[in-house]
């Protein structure tokens, strides 16, 4: 047992009483999504009505809290007033006055700014009652959207650094590792390796210099959970890293963040500075013998750097190319020293496991996958956003309950899970409990947790081409199977979407995929064929339609489709002709127009522009 010079309980009491002085807390989401929708202007407007001008003095004081991402990006800007049990959605600057005057001062809810349930069309007042939130279990994301991400005090108010204090008082690194092992926590970045085991391997090398790295290079297109944690609750990540560093005996750490996430970088820098100033990080943390400093390394736009050995090469200032394993990072990692690399979400789970215990954590989830998982639910679904559910939740619950079903009443076709390393699943998989093993069985993977929902208008072959184009671009070029293999896979897929595919191509795709999976050096290459293999498995008909019938059933592949104008629907408004970039549409005002097929480049501009749905594709 060790004694600390910061009494975390007293600090929590102090902060609580500070928070009470704030009066009515108005939470305005200031994550990347809501900022794009104008959150900063909304905050400014609120402040005009708030503490500064004293308008509220007759009432209780109000305090405007800019928070991190609340997850419900599509409905942004989100404004939450927990004390009034109200969440407003799609708030614009011009709505602020009404919220203040009518609701905060007058006690009358502004109905028109409440969320409308896509199924029942009911207006719902509080986010806890919205299906999108109601069916979630938020642990890693617990504080995202509920606290001021730029304040250490706010983090302390929600148990921040309590777990770190606990392990420092106990002063037994092995006990920490045992707890994490027992909790069953597995890596949330994709591979699903047991976190405790990783720590144990590195801890075996205690004594010399070692490093703790946080992998925040969230490169999977369609995944943004790590961004949300870094932006919305940076102290939780720092605390998780400090606990891990204590367990493995590291005194220095790095957070590797994508350069595409400027807000996350800014908030992390601020959080590190404040934590160091107040001795929650740095030398002799909280008066203990444990010292730990954290640096931030900005990525420079290379997907492969999410692979742990490539990431270390990048931190060392080199080209981010993977190195063969073994040696594993736990033995020989950054600068040749023992290193542990954990993903952001993994580390965000660590403090709460220490605080509430391994049993609490392992009570959630399935046999082989404990706890919760975040998913970025996007694409053609009504409620897009970031969610967190217990492992083992089915796709049906996620897409149809939380996600509110497919938008515009269209039909569900497939869901792409796990990004460029994952696969496409169909209707028959909607009831599979999602965890590492079950998804692997059906040819997909949890991956980082991107879920892109597709409807009948999505061409699956084109999606496979899209992913192959991505991995081919991002292949670092070090090993032949990935460098040349992905190039050839892409070439074949391009041929097929252009209507020049042959039946032998299918065989070649399968054969080549197997070779890449076997021979590639790192996980990027080994998993690159997954989108091709899973779509071939479940959507062979669609490949065959492109190859045999020279048709794209979804009407996406431009070489295989034709735009025509339905003369009975065309009102002759000329909008299509004005939008056509190549002047392929002819016609006079108020008379039906015609597309000259020899000039048409099939860009779809007319299709998008027509207000009367007179343009048909197929």
């Amino acid at each position, binding site marked *: 047992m060790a004694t600390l010079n910061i009494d975390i309980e007293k600090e929590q009491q102090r902060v609580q009483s500070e928070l009470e002085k704030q009066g009515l807390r108005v939470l305005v989401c200031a994550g990347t999504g809501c900022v794009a*929708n104008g959150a900063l202007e909304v905050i400014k407007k609120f402040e005009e009505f708030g503490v500064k001008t004293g308008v509220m003095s007759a009432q209780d004081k109000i305090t405007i809290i800019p928070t991190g991402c609340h997850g419900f990006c599509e409905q942004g800007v989100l404004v939450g007033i927990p004390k009034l049990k109200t969440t407003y959605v799609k708030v614009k600057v011009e709505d602020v006055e009404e919220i203040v005057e009518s609701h905060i001062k007058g006690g009358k809810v502004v109905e028109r700014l409440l969320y409308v349930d896509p199924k029942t069309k009911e207006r719902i007042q509080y986010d806890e009652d919205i299906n999108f939130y109601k069916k979630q279990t938020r642990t890693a994301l617990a504080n995202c959207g509920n606290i001021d991400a730029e304040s250490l005090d706010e983090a302390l108010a929600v148990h921040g650094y309590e777990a770190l204090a606990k392990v420092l008082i106990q002063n037994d690194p092995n006990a920490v590792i045992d707890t994490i092992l027992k909790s069953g926590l597995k890596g949330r970045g994709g591979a699903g390796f047991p976190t405790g085991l990783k720590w144990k391997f590195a801890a075996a090398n205690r004594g010399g210099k070692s490093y703790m790295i946080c992998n925040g290079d969230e490169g999977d297109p369609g995944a943004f959970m790590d961004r949300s944690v870094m932006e919305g609750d940076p102290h939780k990540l720092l605390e998780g890293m400090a606990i891990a560093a204590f367990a493995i005996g590291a005194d220095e750490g790095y957070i590797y963040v994508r350069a595409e996430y400027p807000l996350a970088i800014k908030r992390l820098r601020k959080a590190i500075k404040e934590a160091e100033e107040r001795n929650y990080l740095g030398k002799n943390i909280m008066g203990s013998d444990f010292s730990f400093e954290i640096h931030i390394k900005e990525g420079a*736009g290379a997907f492969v750097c999410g692979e742990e050995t490539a990431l270390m090469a990048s931190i060392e200032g080199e080209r981010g190319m993977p190195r063969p394993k073994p040696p594993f990072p736990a033995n020989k990692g950054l600068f040749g020293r023992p290193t542990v690399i954990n993903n952001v979400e993994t580390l965000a789970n660590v403090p709460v496991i220490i605080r509430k215990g391994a049993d609490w954590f392992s009570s959630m989830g399935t046999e082989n996958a404990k706890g919760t998982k975040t998913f970025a639910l996007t694409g053609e679904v009504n409620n897009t956003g970031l969610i967190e559910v217990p492992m083992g939740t089915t796709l049906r619950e996620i897409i149809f309950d939380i996600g509110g079903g497919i938008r515009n009443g269209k039909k569900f076709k497939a869901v792409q899970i796990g990004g460029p390393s994952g696969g496409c699943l169909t209707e028959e998989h909607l009831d599979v409990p999602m965890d590492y093993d079950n998804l692997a069985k059906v040819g997909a993977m949890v991956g980082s947790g991107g879920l892109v929902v597709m409807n009948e208008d999505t061409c699956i072959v084109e999606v496979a081409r*899209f992913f192959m184009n991505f991995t081919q671009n991002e292949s670092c070029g070090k090993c032949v199977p990935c460098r040349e293999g992905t190039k050839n896979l892409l070439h074949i897929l391009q041929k097929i979407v252009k209507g020049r595919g042959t039946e032998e191509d299918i065989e070649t795709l399968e054969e080549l995929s197997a070779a890449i999976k076997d021979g590639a050096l790192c996980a990027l290459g080994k998993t690159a064929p997954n989108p091709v293999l899973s779509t071939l498995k479940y959507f062979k008909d669609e490949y065959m339609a492109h190859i045999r019938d020279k048709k794209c059933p979804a009407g996406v592949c431009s070489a295989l489709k034709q735009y025509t104008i339905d003369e009975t629907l065309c009102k002759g408004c000329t909008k299509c002709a004005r939008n056509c970039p190549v002047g392929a549409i002819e016609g006079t005002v108020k008379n039906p127009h015609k597309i000259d097929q020899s000039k048409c480049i099939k860009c779809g501009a007319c299709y998008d522009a027509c207000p009367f749905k007179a343009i048909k594709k197929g």
Partner: protein
Amino acid sequence: MVEEKSINLTKVDEIINSYEGKKTNLIAILQKVQELYSYLPMEAMTYIGTKMEGLSPATVYGVATFYAQFSLEPKGKYVIKMCDGTACHVRGSMPVYNSVISRFNLKNGKYTTEDGMFSVETVSCLGACGLAPVVVINEQVYPKMTTDAMKVILDDIIKQERE
């Protein structure tokens, strides 16, 4: 090929020194240099490779060409980044991208307009998937883009520039 202007190397020196000339900071140094010039001038890269210990111009060039963030040519005043991550792709980022490309008549691997006003590029994911498709012009994020909206935004910028 854009003509190389001679550059002021004292500023590059300052950047190198602010990172203590450590080669592990090479990426950060290149990022700062790019911030300064909006691209990585060959002269600056050669200088860094010669000046810093343990590096060669070839190594610096190798690192610069590895990462997508680095540009070896000057970019336009307005950099239009079209997100083509999965969510944006599924919700129609490509028609928007194509409309920009054809508007500026950019083809055959050319991504900057003749007048140096606009550069157009695709990026894999900006993590704003809930707002797909997303376009970022310089620092400004435009959510839920359509070809129509894109036209209006570009018209506005061009009008502003004329004034």
